[in-house]
């Protein structure tokens, strides 16, 4: 096997052009996936690339570099629309995992249970891809992750950043994770919700659910139903909504039926948390 740790993006892209490499970012999915026996893949370590580090803000985007860890997401000051992403970050594995694991790696790994997916879907995120031949392209996240462990990454391409368009950063947001223990837990289901209000009227809504389909889904029908209604209508709207976007399966973490019921409940909770402050909901902090 070969190993390369380029220090310039151009160099990395040229290497990627020559042959397939396994990209190594935080390594928190990479190492556990190694089977018994020696490493067979060629490894391209992107941790030497300064271009991929950090969070920057442009006029129309918040740009999360591909090397940005969950811990950096939590520490970086961002508008309340990102609270759901920060809450998700806090629930990824443990501090050890958050210090190493990257948001981009989470998306590239394309697990149905990736906690980064629902909040970033609800932020209308785009994935920035680069290759030596084709330069840069931006792909909607919903078109980037195609299935369980399947992405739209083309040969020679590297994910260089995740973009959140400014238009999707309005309002408040919240994330609810449903798991069978307190820490270090893969989600049975998780929901992210973002709503923008005028007074008590919902003018914008974004809701996404993970672990209840091969790829996390925006719940667009519900979003449509919410827009124009009042926050006091949230519970009834969620109860009435069929959640046909979801196609949960049975596994060791929970039954399909349970996921359906649970998803509805956590969608409601995420929406209520985004809509009301804790004090308004009468919850002790």
């Amino acid at each position, binding site marked *: 096997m070969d190993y390369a740790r380029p220090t310039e993006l151009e160099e990395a892209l040229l290497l990627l052009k020559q042959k397939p490499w396994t990209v190594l970012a935080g*390594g928190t999915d990479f190492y556990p996936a190694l089977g018994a026996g*020696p*490493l067979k893949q060629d490894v391209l370590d992107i941790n030497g690339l300064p271009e991929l580090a950090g969070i920057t803000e442009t006029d129309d985007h918040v740009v999360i570099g591909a090397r940005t860890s969950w811990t950096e997401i939590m520490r970086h000051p961002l508008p309340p629309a990102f609270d759901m992403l920060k809450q998700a970050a806090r629930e990824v594995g443990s501090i050890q995992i958050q210090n190493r694991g990257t948001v981009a790696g989470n998306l590239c790994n394309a697990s149905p249970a990736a906690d980064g997916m629902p909040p970033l879907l609800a932020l209308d995120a785009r994935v920035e891809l680069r290759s030596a031949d084709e330069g840069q392209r931006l792909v909607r996240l919903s078109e980037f992750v195609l299935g369980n462990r399947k992405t739209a990454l083309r040969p020679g391409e590297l994910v260089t950043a995740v973009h959140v368009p400014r238009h999707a950063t309005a309002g408040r947001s919240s994330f609810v994770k449903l798991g069978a223990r*307190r*820490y270090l837990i893969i989600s049975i289901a998780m929901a992210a919700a973002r709503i923008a209000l005028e007074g008590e009227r919902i003018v914008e809504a974004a809701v996404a659910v993970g672990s209840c389909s091969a790829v996390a889904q925006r719940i667009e029908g519900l979003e449509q139903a919410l827009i124009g209604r009042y926050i006091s209508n949230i519970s009834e709207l969620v109860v009435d909504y069929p959640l046909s976007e979801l196609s949960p399966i049975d596994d*060791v973490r*929970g039954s399909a039926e349970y996921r359906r019921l*649970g998803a509805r*409940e956590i969608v409601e909770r995420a929406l209520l948390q985004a809509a009301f402050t804790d004090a308004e909901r009468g919850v002790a902090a």
Partner: protein
Amino acid sequence: MSGGSISLSFEVNGRPIVVETAPVQRLSALLRDKVGLTGTKVGCDAGDCGACSVLVDGEVVCACLVPASDVAGRRVRTVEGLSNGRLSALQQSFLRHGAAQCGICTPGLLVTASALLDENPAPSEAEVQDALGGVLCRCTGYRKIVQAVMNANRPVAVESGTIAPRAAVGASPIRLDGERKVTGREIFGADERPSDALSVLVVRSPFWHATFEIGDREAFIAAHPGIVGVFTAADIPGENRFGVIPPFADQPALAEGRARFRGEAVALIAGERDAIEALDPASFPIAWTELPYCLTTEEARTPGAKLVHEGRPDNILTQGLVESGVPEAGLARAKAIVEGSMETSYVEHAYIEPEAGYAMVDGDTLVIKACTQAPFMDRDDTAKVLGLPPEKVRIVPLATGGGFGSKLDVSLQPLIGLVALKTGRPAALVYSRGDSMRSTTKRHPARMQARIGADAQGRITGMIFEGDFNTGAYASWGPTVANRVPVHASGPYRTPNYRAVGRAIHTNGPISGAFRGFGVPQATIMQETLYDRLAGKLGMDRLEFRLVNALSDGDRTTCGQELHGVGIRQCLEQLRPHWERALADAESFNKESFKTRRGIGVASCWYGCGNTALPNPSTIRVGISRDGAVVLHQGAVDIGQGSNTVIAQICADASGLPLSAFTLLGGDTGITPDAGKTSASRQTFISGKAAEKAGRALRETILRFANVSDAAEISLEGTVLVIREGQAVRHVSLDNLPADAHGYAFSAEETYDPPTTALDGKGQGKPYAVYGYGAQIVELEVDMRLGTVRLLKITAAHDVGRAINPILAEGQIEGGIAQGIGLALMEEYVPGRTENLHDYLIPTIGDVPPIETILVEVPDPEGPFGAKGLGEHVLIPTAPAILNAIRHASGAEIEKVPATPSRVLAAIQAAGRKP
């Protein structure tokens, strides 16, 4: 791992170093194997356990997920760097609080907590939990860890200091082996390896049931430089059958042409370390033919089902029965009867240390240094398999990073022993997490039914219990489970008319063996949940109902044994005020809350200490050397539970010598007599009693020598033994005395075997000499919409007879409760599916609520200083108390554990209680 080699410079614990390494080598392997810092532990190689936590530039990471190349030019801090010359405040706090049991998780916890304390010197409980959520501990139940971290920087009121002679029992000295554990100096199975050792790779069956043929070994060896040999069943010189219970021994060290479960060892590949690490296991020439298999007891008992072992008809390994009175008539007389069934899952021991060790030939003796719970059993089984006389095998236990029953059976011992014998070179093996989970024993999954009846006053009139226990492919401890369960299935309650049957059934599933409680925790879930329903039917308070039936002194058990020193009533009475307070709290909470409901549950336990109706001796030797050292041959292996400290405390007080004078030798079969296995909650009672006898005998020998009475006090001043009686003082120069047969100036060796009798055809007799008792209350909240359960508090009252070391006893209780929580709420080993700590869930630091421990001391007439066993008792009440609290909160009647959110929500709906 390769990718060429780089020269890497970085700083470790303030010291700059340069090493050659493959760039993607895991930092954990680099630190352990190349830098020699074995304080950083490896429990999973997958980020799931946190044992490998280190700081890189001050940030905590799992070293098993960090490529070596990433630390170039950076600062790494490991547990070895936490103390500079003297222990840090945090390390001292861990010792004081008893926050380390086996100690395998301790380095990772210390490193992680030190990062927290650097930023936040006085963290809250929630902050400690958030910070330590990524480090698993299977022993302690975390509560003492939380306390140790919160109080690390607070001033210490009293240092425990030296303990006066004859005051060790009942005190809580810092565990004698504690310092090694908090500094990373403790040597566990994987921490020592001779430089010329071969590595061993075990080829295992990927199928539940299959025959296999091994291809051309010579060609395989020739094609793989550095591979030294391939060994199969045909190479085994002795009898290829081992098993913890000799009459049932049935497991081959290497399968003979047919593998009966997934993970069974079929061949060994031995080679140089690099060659084994570079070897692709798929290149091994082996052809498999899959055979039909069964995984559940139902399948295995279907008429015509394929037999897992010829000669064990109906796939029944063995069956235990206890019958007394006339059960049907008793039930017929009842005012109320309840009936139900309960199913439990495979539970994995999930100690943080996978099996590890090495073997080497020393002269004509095969020496095996590995983690273990039972050195003499390892010795005898290994010798038998390898065709050696037992005295030609020497087992030197290395520190054991948790055992809980699974490290009673041999695992790698005969395998590495075979390679060492065949090659003449040391042979080392460290199980991967996956191999550990696939190949070692589990808790028996059980399918149980029971009927229990009571009269109008709430007195039990009869009980009938039946349970099938899935014992997997080989016998292991299946017979013990089948026999222990019927003895205990009544709970510590008077049950005049009783019949209980326990069957151990073979399947092609993982081998079920010993796991804290030998089937009793499962049976207690059945009985105690039915008790709640019965109390409900009778309209009685659930705690009072238990008190009505609690066994008392002079009562007879269902085996007809008359009991003395029975403390269950006292335990329940101690819980009563907590029960009343908790019920009132729940009631007022539930008045206002509908989506979240509070519930309270209670359950009891009793548990016989030691083997069931079988001989079970321990021998302890203690000597005073001619240079003035008091040497305790402490063969009761300390797997974290604290026998090194407890046995020494007992021996110290029995001898009248101060505890601080004692030096310990471990359970090395070459130098220490057999103190039996660390199982069945027997060490404090049986080895403790042997230690008490040995201590007394040593004292008597000295008193006789000095010609003084038992009122005399003995102390040591250098090599002089000082004996005072009243005004008279005698000085005995030890170095002038001749050495006795054991090489000591004075020594004593005593054996204790508890008085038990065999059980007759109806299970009548005296199966155990001592029982321990306990009861626990669980307070929790159920999320009625999600089926999730949040534990609020557990109050545990345990009758330990005499708390030899209260802090260690509390540590056992908290650790047992944590495992009970896992059994009740999350642990479900699905063979072939959850063979890692990612999918197999054990409680984290955030899953164990505050625990209030009440130590009840009803002295046992037989135990040393009145002490009873405790180690297994502690997890028995937790799971049923949780299920009872869930039912109280939500109406949900759980019929299969773990009570995952999915199952709880389904049961809430079945009860028609969804809000």
